[in-house]
């Protein structure tokens, strides 16, 4: 059967995946801490077909043969780690990282996951947890009845204990950094997991070693650019149509051959 059919099919499949990525980005345009995805395309391998009986004349070199590509594929989706817009909320437990870094949260099975979503709350035991109930690691416990929860830009947490008038330090929030954050695996729920491509997590205090500062009462919104997503969508639609047209042409040729001969 005609190879043009399969090549066009790869084009259609790749544009489908790209559209799914754009749709996911647009769906999460208001999600706190969401990082937009970008689909990366690559052309598939080329088969080098040598023409049998290729003749070389005395002057010109032997032609190297015909190279036919096999289509396109989506190599992967990259997360784009640019800063989202900062939204002040005034909630004392809303934290934003200004610069690089991730919060660490601990999963029930003991694994460490990483997130940029700084919406934290207190659970029934007074532990600082994220919206899904996963505790911040290393654990931070706020004593019962404390007030004035304050987080400094270097992560030092101070509260006013019941019965005291002066604030006292109860712990420090540390951030982690990665050599290649784009290599982290996205788990959903604004959580990421380390992989071989992302490198080891490097823990540090906010503001040092390239980590960003913490800001209390502010949330980092998503970094999705709506205009860019819309323009990409138009490009994807037209590319899809063009590939479908070639598929049609190849199919029409074979149909004509079958009917006529």
């Amino acid at each position: 059967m005609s190879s043009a059919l399969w090549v066009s099919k790869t084009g259609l499949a790749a544009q489908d995946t790209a559209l799914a990525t754009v749709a996911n980005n647009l769906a999460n345009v208001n999600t706190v801490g969401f990082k937009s995805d970008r689909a990366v395309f690559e052309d598939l391998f080329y088969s080098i077909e040598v023409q049998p009986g290729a003749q070389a004349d005395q002057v010109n070199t032997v032609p190297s043969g015909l190279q036919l590509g096999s289509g396109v594929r989506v190599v992967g989706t990259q997360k784009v780690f640019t800063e989202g817009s900062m939204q002040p909320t005034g909630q004392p437990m809303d934290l934003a990282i200004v610069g690089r870094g991730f919060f660490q949260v601990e999963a029930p099975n003991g694994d460490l996951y990483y997130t940029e979503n700084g919406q934290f709350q207190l659970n029934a035991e007074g532990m600082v947890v994220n919206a899904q109930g996963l505790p911040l690691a290393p654990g931070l416990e706020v004593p019962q009845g404390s007030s004035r929860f304050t987080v400094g830009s270097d992560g030092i947490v101070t509260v006013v204990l019941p019965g005291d008038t002066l604030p006292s330090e109860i712990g420090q929030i540390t951030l982690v950094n990665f050599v290649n954050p784009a290599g982290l695996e996205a788990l959903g729920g604004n959580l990421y997991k380390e992989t071989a491509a992302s490198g080891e997590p490097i823990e540090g205090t906010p503001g040092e070693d390239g980590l960003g500062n913490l800001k209390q009462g502010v949330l980092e919104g998503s970094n999705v650019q709506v205009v860019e997503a819309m323009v990409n969508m138009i490009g994807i639609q037209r590319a899809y149509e063009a590939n479908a047209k070639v598929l049609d042409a190849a199919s029409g040729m074979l149909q004509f051959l079958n009917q006529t001969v």
Partner: protein
Amino acid sequence: MDRLGFTAMTAASRTMTSLQLRANNLANATTPGFRADMEQAEAVAVEGFGYDSRHLVRLRDNGVNMQAGVLMATGRDLDLAVQGQGLIALEGEAGRELYTRHGSMQVDAELRLTINGRPVLGEGGPIVLPEYDSLHIGNDGTVSVIPRGDYLSAEVDRIKRVDIPAANVMKHSSGLLMTRDGQPAEASEEVRLLSGHLEASNVSAVGELVASMSLSRLFEAQVKMMKAAEDLSEAGNRMIRG
């Protein structure tokens, strides 16, 4: 049975192969840095006495269209686009050099700059970065970083850029470009890079669609010729039957 059927067959099969090439170009119309393939056919005379009217069709080795595509602004520090002509050098297997215009770079776990898994070549081999806070790529390929914990920028290496004439470029089986003789090309100082941008593919969708339509019609004409050859031989058979 008239041999004109075979002449038409070579044309029809050339059309199918050309359509695969066009389909590949269109499938990669949104792949950044993709260079369109060009196809050309030539007439090949059949050698021998009495075959003077037989000229078959053969596809010649195709070239690569090195026209520059449109630049798209992405704002990512590690995205590079080549302004005008020129290519970025990557390390292939067995010391071979491969070239590309798709400048979407990643930093892998060993802190090497890579494009699609292949290390980007600097002045003395692959570029390895120190631990850094931020990175900037200059217009002449100079990679400078602000090392971790420092605030002054330090130059790390320079990306190897080459300028190969379009006639000398062919595609490697991975889809990257290489020189026709397989030898690494000389570094060129004239090639300018632009960071924060990616170059779109240089496929003209209109051109490819028109070409594929024209190939469809050509194919139909060839099939009609094959039918004509069949009719001729059928007429001959009828005459013999009496």
